[in-house]
């Protein structure tokens, strides 16, 4: 076995590279510590009240962050509602339906969606998407506009534009993980379903069900992306701190308020309040990422053990 005889050289190698390994871990811990250190004024001053009040008035020294957390969660949930079915459709299409020569180009194109920088989506959002959304809002019939979901003047910038642009940006992440997860489903699962007389959709539904934890993980990973997305959202959401159900209303997100106000936050308390928003964003995305990765990993291990037991029987019968 390699390295069974310890030498001084081995030791040096281990420590030399190990330092850098520790450094990577150190960076993550340093981020957490530093965010806490730079937000403690606000943490102590406001406590939980910070997240329960709505008035954000830096001049008067009033900091209530509820509208931001609302805007972040609402926009991300809406984006997921749009992106998840499309992303799963893409994953199924690429891994199950598309003929082989088409698979690679399709993968490349969807990955291109992820490669386009956020600022470019934002620019496109301001000058192309927002006018389109405004037209849509202007032509919404009055009886629909009476609903709380569509209240407010048709300005174009607002929750709907943000959700659309977010969903475009999330689709490639969710679909590429879902694709990987579907690929991990043993072929015999599908063969078994076909052998029992399943239609194509029924066989794919089997595969999706088999891979369900991984699929949930893929969707959550997309959610984590959406929560932290900054530039494109900042440019189209309207940057107005208010809590509203309306898709047409301009709102605000946690990332957007940091992007807009951080450079000019002169007062210590103001700065600490903004860092606290960052800290909470960090913690939320961290938790979501860890859980989603656990979901995706959990699929990898039992899949191999289960294959022989359940899937092989129908496959053998069909032979």
């Amino acid at each position, binding site marked *: 076995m390699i390295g069974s005889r310890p030498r001084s050289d081995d030791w040096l190698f281990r420590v030399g590279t190990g330092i850098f390994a520790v450094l990577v871990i150190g960076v993550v811990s340093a981020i957490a510590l530093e965010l806490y250190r730079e937000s403690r004024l606000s943490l102590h001053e406001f406590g939980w009240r910070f997240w329960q009040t709505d008035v954000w008035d830096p001049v008067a020294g009033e900091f209530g962050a509820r509208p931001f957390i609302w805007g972040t969660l609402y926009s991300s949930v809406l984006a997921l509602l749009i992106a998840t079915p499309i992303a799963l459709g893409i994953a199924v299409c690429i891994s199950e339906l598309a003929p082989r020569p088409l698979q690679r180009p399709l993968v490349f194109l969807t990955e291109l969606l992820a490669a*386009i920088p956020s600022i470019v989506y934002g620019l496109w959002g*301001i000058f192309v998407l927002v006018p389109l959304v405004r037209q849509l809002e202007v032509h919404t019939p009055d009886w629909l506009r009476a609903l709380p979901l569509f209240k407010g003047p048709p300005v174009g910038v607002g929750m709907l534009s943000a959700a659309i642009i977010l969903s475009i940006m999330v689709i490639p992440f969710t679909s590429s993980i879902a694709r990987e997860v579907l690929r991990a489903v043993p072929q015999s699962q599908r063969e078994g379903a076909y052998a029992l007389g399943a239609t194509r959709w029924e066989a794919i539904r089997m595969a999706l069900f088999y891979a369900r934890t991984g699929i949930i993980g893929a969707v959550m990973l997309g959610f984590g992306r959406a929560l932290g997305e900054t*530039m494109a959202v900042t440019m189209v959401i309207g940057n107005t701190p208010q809590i509203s159900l309306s898709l047409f209303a301009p709102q605000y997100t946690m990332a957007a308020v940091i992007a807009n106000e951080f450079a000019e936050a002169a007062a210590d308390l103001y700065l600490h309040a903004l860092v606290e928003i960052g800290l909470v964003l960090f913690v939320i995305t961290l938790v979501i990422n860890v859980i989603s990765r656990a979901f995706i990993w959990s699929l990898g291990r039992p899949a191999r053990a289960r294959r022989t037991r359940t899937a092989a029987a129908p496959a053998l019968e069909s032979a």
Partner: protein
Amino acid sequence: MRDLRRRLVSHVIMMLCVLSVALALIPLALVLFYVVSRGISSLSWTFFTRMPAPVGEPGGGMANAIVGSLLVTGIGALFAIPVGVLAGIYAAEHRGTRLASAVRFAADTLNGVPSIVIGVFAYSVAVLPFQRFSAVAGGLALGIMMLPLVTRTAEELLLLVPASLREGALALGATRARAVFTVVVPAALPGILTGVLLALARVAGETAPLLFTAFNNRFFTTDVRQPVSTLTVQIYTYAISPYEDWHRQAWAGALVLVALVLTCSLLARVVTARMERMRVG
């Protein structure tokens, strides 16, 4: 009858799946179309060589921002590449140890941290103590963003190197370090370079972490202790301005950025394809 319905449902859903691909490709096509069509008309040689023009004066370019982007991304790479590659080597060579799993976990975690939060961190460690925005602070933010990508790519590609290569080197009496640095790493090098290239392309398009680290600068500078203008922040400033001329500049900037990112992705794809063929052949 029931069979017919089941088959019909199946066909409809399969059609919906194909439709969803189309739905995702429409925005891609639209974004690329607008970036190219609007960008190309305002893109000229002066865009790369001139400084920004004041409001109302047509023309001008983003020479300072392009140099600034290179500077900041370069500083980031200087930090991320050695740390990332060496940490990746550790994780690959000591697979199964607790530290290796911890590195993998930390890198994945870091990869999920929103870029704006990394900006806040870079601000508090590299701007606040010196009371000055600087290219170094921006570079630090971008370096932290590159770090997980470089680490994970290095680790994964080192693991792909056939064990026989390493065993051969060890059998010839090489020490572990020597085997890794003269045999295993060179074998994985094209792949690692690809990963680095992709990481560079990704962070070159980042805006959020630069807003309050590298900040902005109307003038040309290569002093890393000074605030510096970058392509992405400049696009942002121009995009939210009310001036028609500036909007055109923003589109031109977006075109340059997208061209850069696409070139890197395509290049990476070609290298990866070639590597795969080598492994099969």
